[in-house]
Structures are given as structure tokens and as C-alpha cells.
């Protein structure tokens, strides 16, 4: 069985279409930071937000009236991926399209509001309108309703690696001839509470930039948005291999877990690596895995430009990998360390002789996954 990418949708702090975001990445642009605060805590935190203009084309739908930002991001990316592939869903075909949703923190904005009311004013003031939107599969449900999908819909939860695990799950499903397509959507919304939690965990920094592969690690900045990949049996970019993923129990074991995933992806010489480096402890582990398993590979880290979008992040990396293969270019890696452990990208959207790209997803909460694309 051979699977391909038939369509892609991208909602990011740098815009909301694949050509737009890709163009800005090639020009070396990075998202603008916003400082957010909340009455629940004293600290302010930086975050990369999706601009309102990015959702201007989202169709009106009753399901989206009260939906949280994460559902809107997902809807925009999902629709864009279908449009990109020229797919219109008819009722008889609806069960033949599987929806796999990747999520990490979920509807944190409504979850916080819902619990805030309980703590501040008591359980009898809790809102029955908010609670359903706090459920992890609410965004997938809204998207299924919007698109008229009636068959398989799974919401997969995990850390930053979850998007790749979702693509693996989609591949598992598509071994069954009942499916023509799998729409894989990853989404995340940023909120002060989330930033504060990662800050308490000592993983964020107080101001940009995100400096990939820097030693010592200086921290990440959260962002939000969504990515969607329509997987089909034909398309311009081949999904040459997915990896089922693995887990690590201690940070010191992340390097070994990453090496295992990279090794098992069997990347040919000259493959590019789209890394998950985000300025935290994962960078050193990822760098060690790449230098050990794929020495000499061109490496690109997206997060200095777009931030750490957790549940959406690895699908953003997959889109980047697919674009690199389609166009033969890699954007310049921003804010990279002067002592990179591998050859630095040339830094200026040069044409690359690459036919393969490996996407590595090292999550902050013990999961690692990967896949290989080819053209």
C-alpha cells in the first residue's frame, strides 16, 4: 500500500494558507510575539497568536458560533486541505473519509473559564454551554459536522509528537479498503494558563527568540494554529514510511528514543531532517540523534519562526517537509546556534538536491515519533 499527501491546510501565526506561510518562511520572517496576562496569576507570558485575518474565509456554521479558537483553527485547516485536493464530500462518500484529530492541550480557554466559575462562585454557577466545548473531541465533532463526515472520527491525544502518531493511525486505517481518504488535523489554542504551566515546568523563556540547538537550552515560546493533511492513495508527495512511535521515561533517554525512531525510518543518504527543536531539552537529544544516525543531513527547525504549537506542531513540520520536496528549497533556520552540531542550512532558500525528508517529532511529555516523505 502506498499513501500520499493529496492536500494540505495551514493556519499559523504567519498566516493561513500554505503558499502564504511558505513564502514568509522562505523570506526568513518570524511571527510577532504578543505578551499576555491573566487575573489568575501575576506573571506575563509571550505567545505567538494566529491573527484574526487568518480566519476571514471561514464559512459561517451554527456549530462554530460558540466554538473555541481551536475548533475554528481546525475547521479552517481541514477545509483548506480538502480544497487543495479538489475534494467535495457527498453523502454517499462521507463514510469513506476518516477524520483523525491530533490534540494535546485541547480547549484550554473554555476549560479554564469553566473551572474558574466553579472555583470563584461555586459549582451551581457552572455553565452548561461551556462544558461540552472542554471535551477533547469537541473540535473533531465540529469539523465532522461542518464537512458532513459520518464514519470514523478519532481524536488522538498526546504531546508534540501526536500529529505524527495520528498520521500513523490514519495509515493503519487505510490498510482497510473501506477508506479512500484520511483527513488528519492537528490543532492547538494558546492561553495564559498553558503558558504559565509550561513556565512552571521551566520550559519557556520570557521573550523571543526561540534559539534552536543552543547549549544551554534557553526555552520555548508557545504558539497556536492548526495543520491538516489529506492522505490518499495518490498525490504529489509520498508518505514513504510512518513510525508507530516510542516513549521515554526520563529526559536522559530521549536521545536514545530519537535515534531508534530515526534508524527505523531508514532514510537514504541526502535526506533532509525537519526537526522539532524548540529551544528546550529536546534540542540536544534531537541533535545527537541526527548527527549519529543521519550525519551530514540538512536540518531545518521551524519553531523559531512559528513557535511551539504542541498538538499542531508535527503536522506543521510535515507540511514543511512536503513543501521542501515540492519546491526543492528549505527556508533559512532562524536564530540558530553558532556551534551547530551539523552543517548549517545555507540560509537562503537555496535549491536542494533532496528527494526525501524525515520529520522527527520529539514531544515534551515522553513521546517520540517520525515519518519519511519522498518525491
Amino acid at each position, binding site marked *: 500500500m502506498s499513501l500520499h499527501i493529496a492536500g494540505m491546510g495551514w493556519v499559523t501565526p504567519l498566516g493561513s494558507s500554505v503558499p502564504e506561510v511558505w513564502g514568509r518562511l522562505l523570506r526568513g520572517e518570524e511571527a510577532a510575539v504578543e505578551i499576555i496576562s491573566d487575573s489568575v496569576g501575576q506573571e506575563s507570558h509571550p505567545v505567538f497568536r494566529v491573527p484574526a485575518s487568518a480566519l476571514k474565509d471561514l464559512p459561517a456554521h451554527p456549530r462554530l458560533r460558540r466554538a473555541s479558537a481551536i475548533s475554528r483553527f481546525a475547521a479552517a485547516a481541514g477545509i483548506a486541505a480538502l480544497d487543495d485536493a479538489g475534494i467535495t464530500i457527498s453523502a454517499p462518500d462521507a463514510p469513506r473519509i476518516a477524520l483523525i484529530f491530533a490534540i494535546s492541550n485541547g480547549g484550554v480557554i473554555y476549560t479554564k473559564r469553566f473551572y474558574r466559575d466553579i472555583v470563584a462562585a461555586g459549582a451551581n454557577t457552572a455553565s*452548561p454551554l461551556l462544558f461540552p466545548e472542554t471535551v477533547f473531541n469537541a473540535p473533531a465533532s465540529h469539523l465532522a459536522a461542518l464537512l458532513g463526515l459520518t464514519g470514523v472520527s478519532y481524536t488522538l491525544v498526546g504531546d508534540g509528537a501526536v500529529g505524527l*502518531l495520528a498520521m500513523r493511525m490514519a495509515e493503519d486505517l487505510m490498510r482497510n479498503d473501506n477508506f479512500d481518504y484520511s483527513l488528519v488535523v492537528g490543532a492547538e489554542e494558546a492561553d495564559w494558563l498553558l503558558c504559565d504551566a509550561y513556565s512552571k515546568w521551566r520550559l519557556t523563556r520570557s521573550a523571543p527568540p526561540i534559539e534552536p540547538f543552543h547549549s544551554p537550552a534557553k526555552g520555548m515560546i508557545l504558539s497556536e494554529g492548526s495543520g491538516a493533511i489529506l492522505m490518499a492513495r495518490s498525490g504529489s508527495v509520498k508518505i514513504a514510511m510512518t513510525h508507530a512511535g516510542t516513549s521515554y521515561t526520563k529526559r536522559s533517554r530521549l536521545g536514545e528514543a530519537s535515534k531508534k525512531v530515526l534508524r527505523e525510518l531508514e532514510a537514504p543518504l541526502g535526506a533532509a531532517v525537519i526537526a522539532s527543536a524548540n529551544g528546550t531539552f529536546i534540542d540536544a537529544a534531537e541533535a545527537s540523534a541526527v548527527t549519529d544516525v543521519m550525519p551530514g543531513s540538512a536540518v531545518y527547525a521551524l519553531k523559531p519562526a512559528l513557535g511551539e504549537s504542541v498538538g499542531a506542531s508535527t503536522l506543521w513540520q510535515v507540511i514543511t517537509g512536503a513543501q521542501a520536496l515540492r519546491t526543492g528549497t528549505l527556508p533559512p533556520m532562524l536564530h540558530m546556534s553558532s556551534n551547530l552540531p551539523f552543517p548549517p542550512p545555507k540560509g537562503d532558500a537555496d535549491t536542494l538536491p533532496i528527494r526525501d525528508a524525515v520529520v522527527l517529532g520529539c514531544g515534551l511529555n515522553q513521546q517520540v515519533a517520525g515519518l519519511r516523505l519522498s518525491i
Partner: protein
Amino acid sequence: MAVVAAGVVSPLGIGLIKTLQSLRDSRDCVTPVTRFPVDQCRCKTAGQVDDEPLIAAAQLNGRQGRRLHRASHMMIAALREAWSQDPRFRPQLTVVGTTSGGMSFGEQYYRSLQGQATLRQAPAWIANYPPQKPVIDALAAFDLSTPCQVIANACASGTNAIGHAFECIRSGRYERVLTGGYDAISELVFVGFDSLQASTPEKCRPFDRQRTGMVLGEGAALLALEEMDAARRRGAHILAEITGYGISTDNHHLTQPNPSGVGPRTAMEEALRSASIEPEAVDYINAHGTATPFNDAAEGKAIGELFGKGVAVSSTKAMMGHSLGAAGAIEAVVCILSLQHDFLPANINFRGSDEGVVLDIVTNKARSAPVATALSNSFGFGGTNASIVMQKRPG
């Protein structure tokens, strides 16, 4: 697909033996909520797992035990039981359902920000909050780093996980998959269902004409699934067989099923088709049966239309509460016990059916009856519907 081992933690008891005894006794294991204040809620009861036997069953040392979430204890205890039955089982994939992960740690973190507690433990709460953590903790307790797919499809999560695991083996890609579900009760979720008036201030009475809603529960269950020929070749003890899976999405409403019952009916039809059996072959249906007016009306209609009065139906949630992401997995274990011991678990607190509904409800007491084929339903928010077919261990 052979089920070669199973472990369970629920308000009915920890382990298959205690669970079987509670089911045979038709015990009501719903008790007043003690974990958080419920004085401002309509509902004040739930099915709860006692900490002391749970900690003993998980067998964690003091420091490690204190750091992990209760959900991790439940998963470790469930895996320990399954492992004890088949220590040679080595999963190639883990597929587990949940709805809320370590939610109570998130609640503690928020309350500490409000000055209601110290933030000293915040990093541990945050690290142990994610939904995949109890799964990874359980695997790590047995030195496994098996790939994890954690499905959060609301109340259908557990059955979706088992169904997807079944499909993964059936496709030929995997031979052995560990699957199941877990959820630990939390204030946010309890208040959420209370705010929707989905939970009841009185007894949970599935399919009763005067039903007033659900009560929450908690727990975990894990099943070791193996391709049948492979299980036979290595002489594994087979508890039961999973033979079919059906799933559908009903886009009617985020929290309410289509009253026509089309969602549950499609899932059950798909499961029967997947198992290559006719409705007449099913002896027992473990219904989703939350006892909410909407769910039981839609599910009862779908069962009635598809099966008529020819099949015994019960919802075991009246005995142990609705454990959300764990429910489908725990109820799969209930079906295995029913198949193994030829009895029909009871639908307790039942007084009389809805007008015009003709279902053979297993009223209030467990019944002895030959059970060769069981079907288990789980439906959830988001319009997600899942059914699995399980059959007696092949001869």
C-alpha cells in the same frame, strides 16, 4: 481476535474475581462522593474506587506512588492483573481510551494559582496531567516502551480503542495489541455533567420510564488482544474472542444523540457486519444505557428496531456509574465474564419500560443463561458511536 488476558479496576472491585462476584450479586456500588465538595451539585453520588486497595494493587513504593496520578495507579493495577495471566504477552502497540487524563492535577494547579494551596508541587502536577501519562506509566512499570495511541472520543473512547486495536490486528499489521481505557473521577467533569443536568440526584435507572440521569464512575480495564492463530500456536489461554467492530458519527448535536437512533443503529449494524453474524446470533447486549432520557430513548429505539425483543439487554452503569473513557473497556470485561460464566448481568434500579419500548431488560437481578455472543455499546459527546461483538472462547 483472541483476548488472552484482562485486568480491571472499577467500583465493582479490583480484579476479575471481585468484579464477577459483584456482577453476580447485582451490587449497587454507587456511594456518596468524597473526593471534592458536591454540596452545590444536584447529584451527590458516584461509583468510586477506594484508594487503599488501589494502591495495594498497583504495588508502587511510597514516593513513586504519591507522585503519580490515581489514573496511573488504576492503569498499573489493571496491567498487573493482565500481566499475571500472560507474562509472555508482548504488545507491539497500545491503544487506550480516556476522556480527562490527570484532570484533578490540573484542578489542583489552578486552585494553587488562586492561593488555595502551595505551588511547590506544580511541576509534578503538570508532568503527570497529560492523558498519555498513565498509559506510559503502566507500560514503564513492566519495562515496556510500546507505541501508544490514546483515543479521546468522549464516552465511546474505551470501545473505540478496543475496536481500533481489533482492526489493527485484523489488517495484518500487528499480531498483539494491548488495549482498554481509563478515567479517574474529577471535580471539573463531575460538575460539568451536573451543569448539563445529565447526572441524577437519585438512583441511576437505565431504560426505566422514570429515569432521571446518570451517575459518574471511574476505573480502568485492559485487554491483551492477539491474532487467534498466533495465540493458539503459543498455547495462550483464550478468555474470549472479539469478532466485530462498528463505528459511526452522528452530527446531530454536540451532546445529544439523534432521536431517530441512527447513530447507535449504524454502529451496531456495522459491528454485526464486521463479525459476519445476524442480529439473532446475539444473546446479550451490554448497553451504553446512561439513564439519561435522550441516550436511552435513542439506544432503546435502535436496539428494538434491530434486535426486537429477542436479546437480553442490561446497562451495568447503574451498579458502578459511568466511567467515561474506561466504560467501554470495563464493559468489555463484563461481557467476557458473561461469556465465560453464562450469566446476564443485571440492570438494577429498574421499575418499568418506556411506553411502547419492547426490550428484554435483565431486571434487577443477574440471570443464568447461555451466552455465546455479546455486543457492547458506547456512545459519546460529539456524536461518536461504537459497538463491539465478543464471542465465547472458540473450542
